[in-house]
């Protein structure tokens, strides 16, 4: 059936040295969809992807990719999967074109198929002019696009992307997003991990929030915000911010103090904004609630030591 999930995970769990890294995780990735997995460092995102690739054996639960059990039949599944990992594994001794060609051989693709795909993928990665350059001569954004191009050499139906834009400058990130949207338009399915909320909001049809290996929320980006947050956020900074927090708390649904900044969450911001206009000891920023607010609400503001 066309609506069967490409990836079906049920009650997946993984423990390392007594510590639970993935805890009873279930998810479905439907054809043509971009599913985002967001969560702080150490939430279990990468471990989950590695289990989907048969590189980590789960302690419990099941994974099926294209209806094939993983890891038992992972080789067949991998023939239809493309992977971009957080750390580049490009071959430093090969040119861009050779990187693609050699990778194609790992899939057992015939020479003719590989030779036809390499120029197209270089173009897709905006690297036509760099076909003869080695990865060491490329910028971070170019290397990441080459990794994406390499992941497409087998024309996969499913892409697993682990923090694909971490470490890139804004121009390179936007180009990467544009390419990923193009792939979604072509009907590819994507499972994406990220901790950039703007990335999740732009690309993903659905999101799963992971923390300490557990799924703590699931839904569309807008739906999750509506479900968990008030519609408006007013950020207040400055010497008088903490005093304002005490004074104005009754006007809003919820306040949060982080360092010298106070976050007011409300569905009706006008009384608060009115009360703040004459307070010259603070600066204010009024904006709609976004995924970052949701993420911080669900996973907390404290820094993760295992980051």
């Amino acid at each position, binding site marked *: 059936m066309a609506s069967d999930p490409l990836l079906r995970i049920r009650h997946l769990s993984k423990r*390392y040295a007594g510590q639970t890294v993935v805890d009873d995780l279930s998810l479905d990735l439907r054809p043509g969809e971009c599913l985002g997995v967001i969560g702080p460092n150490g939430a279990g995102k990468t471990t989950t992807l590695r289990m989907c*690739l*048969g*590189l*980590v*054996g*789960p*302690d419990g639960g099941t994974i099926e990719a294209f209806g094939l059990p993983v*890891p*038992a039949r992972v*080789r*067949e599944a*991998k*023939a239809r*999967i493309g*992977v971009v*990992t957080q*750390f*580049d*594994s*490009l*071959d*430093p*001794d*090969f040119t861009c074109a*050779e990187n693609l060609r*050699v*990778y194609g*051989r*790992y*899939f*057992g693709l015939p020479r003719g198929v590989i030779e036809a795909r390499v120029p197209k993928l270089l173009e897709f990665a905006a690297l036509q002019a760099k076909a003869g350059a080695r990865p060491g001569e490329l910028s971070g954004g170019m290397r990441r696009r080459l990794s994406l191009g*390499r*992941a497409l050499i*087998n024309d996969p139906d499913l892409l697993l992307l682990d923090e694909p834009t971490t470490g890139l400058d804004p121009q390179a990130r936007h180009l990467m997003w544009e390419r990923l949207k193009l792939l979604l338009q072509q009907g590819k399915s994507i499972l994406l991990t990220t901790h950039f909320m703007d990335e999740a909001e732009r690309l993903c049809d659905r999101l799963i929030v992971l923390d300490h290996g557990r799924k703590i929320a699931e839904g569309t980006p807008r739906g999750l915000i509506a479900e968990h947050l008030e519609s408006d956020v007013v950020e207040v900074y400055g010497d008088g911010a903490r005093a304002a927090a005490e004074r104005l708390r009754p006007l809003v649904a919820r306040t949060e103090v982080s360092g010298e900044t106070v976050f007011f969450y409300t569905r009706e911001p006008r009384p608060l904004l009115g009360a703040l206009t004459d307070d010259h000891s603070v600066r204010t920023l009024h904006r709609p609630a976004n995924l970052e607010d949701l993420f911080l609400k669900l996973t907390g503001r404290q820094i993760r030591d295992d980051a």
Partner: protein
Amino acid sequence: MLIPLYRAPQPSLRFWPVVRRNLLVWKKLAVPSVMGNIAEPLITLIAFGYGLGSLIGAIGGEPYIRYLASGSIAVSCALAATFEALYSAFSRMHVQRTWDGILNAPVALDDIVFAEMLWAALKSLFSVGAILLVIFALDISRAPTMLLAVPLLGVVGVTFASVALVFNALAKGYDFFTYYFTLVLTPMTFLSGVYFPVEQMPAWLQAVAHVLPLTAAVELVRPLVLGQWPAQWLQPLGVLAAYAAVGYYVALVLTRRRFFR
């Protein structure tokens, strides 16, 4: 379902693209690589063979240079395979993350370990071929049986590559390999009848020498390079095969543990 660490090797033909990958890198650096592999044994041959040889005379009726050349070719083979399966494989496995990239394709870790073992053996044969040419060119030996030494040296390469991959799987950094060279390989070259006959040593050391893979290699390769037949085939081939089989299996299990924990 945890990934089983101890199961038998699961071979598949997907090892071949991995060998081809290494071959493609080697082709880019082939000339300096082979030059380096020839220069060192050539210097040893000239310095010790002619220099020391003029003092020693002959061993077992052979001029020392012939004795030395026919033994040290086994050492060169063992060292070339070891070096490739330690430093170069470690670079690909750990530093460059090449193996991680390959594992995301439909290639299993078993394929990669097999490919690395085979590649290291193949690369040792490139050095061996070059040294055989030097032996031929300097007229140290021109025996036709030298050609038979080549496949045997391939077995020697497989043996030393397999054992080296055990240490590759255990390594946290390159420094670790220094121990393997200084504590294992260098002493072995002195005990294996390369520079002087094993019979010169005390009986208990001779007993040790006879279970060393390099002694087995020298026993097989030396006569063939000099135009004779080995006194025995089975015992030395058995020693090489045992080190290769046990080494390869242990290397595979330890590499699986390293990757899959």
